[in-house]
């Protein structure tokens, strides 16, 4: 999955590697261990729903959807090209199987609440998963939705925050620190768990616990590393919104195959650009 992200972004020559890589284990867990869906019947009314509120992380979503069979793997190489269904941010006009069009941060949780509310009204047992960025919790609308879900006890709504501690211009702690994060959500009546967002067993266990806990919406704070898996991208905010060069992509792919030598060589040669801390 991570390798697909690197390949897609190298070809598109633009996009957001950092937040795709930090979310990779979460998205993998959901698509291949948790969610109920049928790619041949994408609007099956009992499917679980996935909303990528952090729309800029869509490469990892596209990689998962291709692997799940929603569209051909070949589409991945068309990311961000004119005429491609794989838009720079998720757009339902091009991929009707998407549950929301996102890219303006802070909106996905509201849409997820609407989907979850419809499920309650229709007595459906599907679950709605909303993957958010930590940065977008700075948006006021997020908290309107957090309040709504808590008050209405939307317990089939599971939000996961990809808590990689960075936003575009730098670290949350320096820009608009949202800590104490867990306590905020709990005070809005949410059931909150914290996990290592790169441990698939921990993510899966948290989702199981969320399913078992009734009467509250669920937040899983997934502590992650931005750029996870590629040493020169990890916690390097340069790669928030800059795609790897072909040299960087080659090194990254090799590292993801278990051989960090090219990455180490890039770092040693001082060739890796550094982002804001």
């Amino acid at each position: 999955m991570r390798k697909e992200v690197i390949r897609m972004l190298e070809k598109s020559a633009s996009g957001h590697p950092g937040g795709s890589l930090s979310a990779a284990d979460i998205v993998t867990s959901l698509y291949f261990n948790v969610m109920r869906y049928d790619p041949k019947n994408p609007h099956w009314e009992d499917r679980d729903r996935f909303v990528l509120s952090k729309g800029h992380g869509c490469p990892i979503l596209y990689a998962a959807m291709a692997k799940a069979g929603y569209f051909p793997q070949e589409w991945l190489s068309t990311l961000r090209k004119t005429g491609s269904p794989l838009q720079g941010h998720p757009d339902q006009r091009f991929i009707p199987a998407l549950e929301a069009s996102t890219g303006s941060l802070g909106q996905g949780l509201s849409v997820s609440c609407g989907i979850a509310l419809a499920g309650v009204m229709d007595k459906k047992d599907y679950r709605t998963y909303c993957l958010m960025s930590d940065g977008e919790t700075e948006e006021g609308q997020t908290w309107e939705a957090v309040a709504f879900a808590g008050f209405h006890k939307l317990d089939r709504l599971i939000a996961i925050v990809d808590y990689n501690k960075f936003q575009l211009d730098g670290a949350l702690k320096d820009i608009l620190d949202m800590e104490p994060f867990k306590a905020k959500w709990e005070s809005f009546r949410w059931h909150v768990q914290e996990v290592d967002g790169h441990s698939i067993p921990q993510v899966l266990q948290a989702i199981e616990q969320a399913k078992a806990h009734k009467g509250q919406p669920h937040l899983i704070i997934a502590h992650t590393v931005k750029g996870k898996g590629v040493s020169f991208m990890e916690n390097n905010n340069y790669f928030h919104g800059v795609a790897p060069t072909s040299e960087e992509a080659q090194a990254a792919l090799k590292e993801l195959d278990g051989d960090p030598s090219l990455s180490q060589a890039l770092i040693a040669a001082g060739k890796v650009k550094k982002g804001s801390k």
Partner: protein
Amino acid sequence: MTGAVVTRRPVEKKLGLATRDAYGQALAELGKKNSKIVVLDADLSSSTRTSAFAKLFPERFFNVGIAEANMVGLAGGLASSGKIPFISSFACFLVCKGYDQLRMAVALPKLNVKVVTSHGGISVGEDGSSQQSIEDVALMSSLPNFTVIVPSDEHSTRALVTEAGGTEGPVYIRTGRPKAPVIHGPSTPVKMGKGILVRSGSDVTLAANGLLVWEALLAAEQLQKEGVSAAVVDMHTIKPLDESLLVSQAEATGAFVVAEEHSVWGGLGSAVSQALSRLHPVPVEFVGIQDTYAESGQPEELFKKYGLTAADIAQAARRAVKRKKK
């Protein structure tokens, strides 16, 4: 042109329901017929009149709190799950505070959400400029996929709300606070996207929507005394615009006044003049709010102060006719 009755008899002012009241009634009726209809309101249901629906169908009504942005997002999620959400608040709050959400969660995915606002325009009155929406039509018209409607009276509001409820896709309807003079008979056909010729005339066409349709009718009477024959058209739908009616009126009268309770920037006037300049250029004059915010006061006084009366429309018509003769 629709088959509306075209009258030359003197107009009699008969106050009907406020268009917001007609919305409340029509929405409750829709709720009886279609269980998919869900109504959201941002804590103004007694003012927007969604309260009538709430009383009948509490399980399908949500006061989401004073949180317009979230309300629009919720509507997107409900619509993508097969519901038909009607969402309401004051025009200024819903459109301005929910605009990015209307763009992302409704317009872009072209979802079946009906946005019906109340308190459009300055006839809100005493509450003052923060509550008076003069920008909503411009903002909503610029969103692709939205149909944009400003009905003039209770009959047309009922008809348009009902039609919107049965039509797939995003629709914006702006209603008003005060009681609205009756314009249309109960059997007048009213269709989204079709203007209504309310009064025929040969010298100038007064195209208006909302409360300004009544003012236009009064203006036409004044003009008739001066020997100017003015047609009046209820252009309730700004988008899609009834271009064929505009062209036939331009051919028949050769001059236009567009009148609306909205900023002259980006409202019906902009839409009509854009269409006419492309299809059949004729002199056009504009009656609307002149790029300013209004203030507290009685609606009638504010209409005078901000140039939205029959006298203002008649004056604009004289200008348009004069330009035509050059």
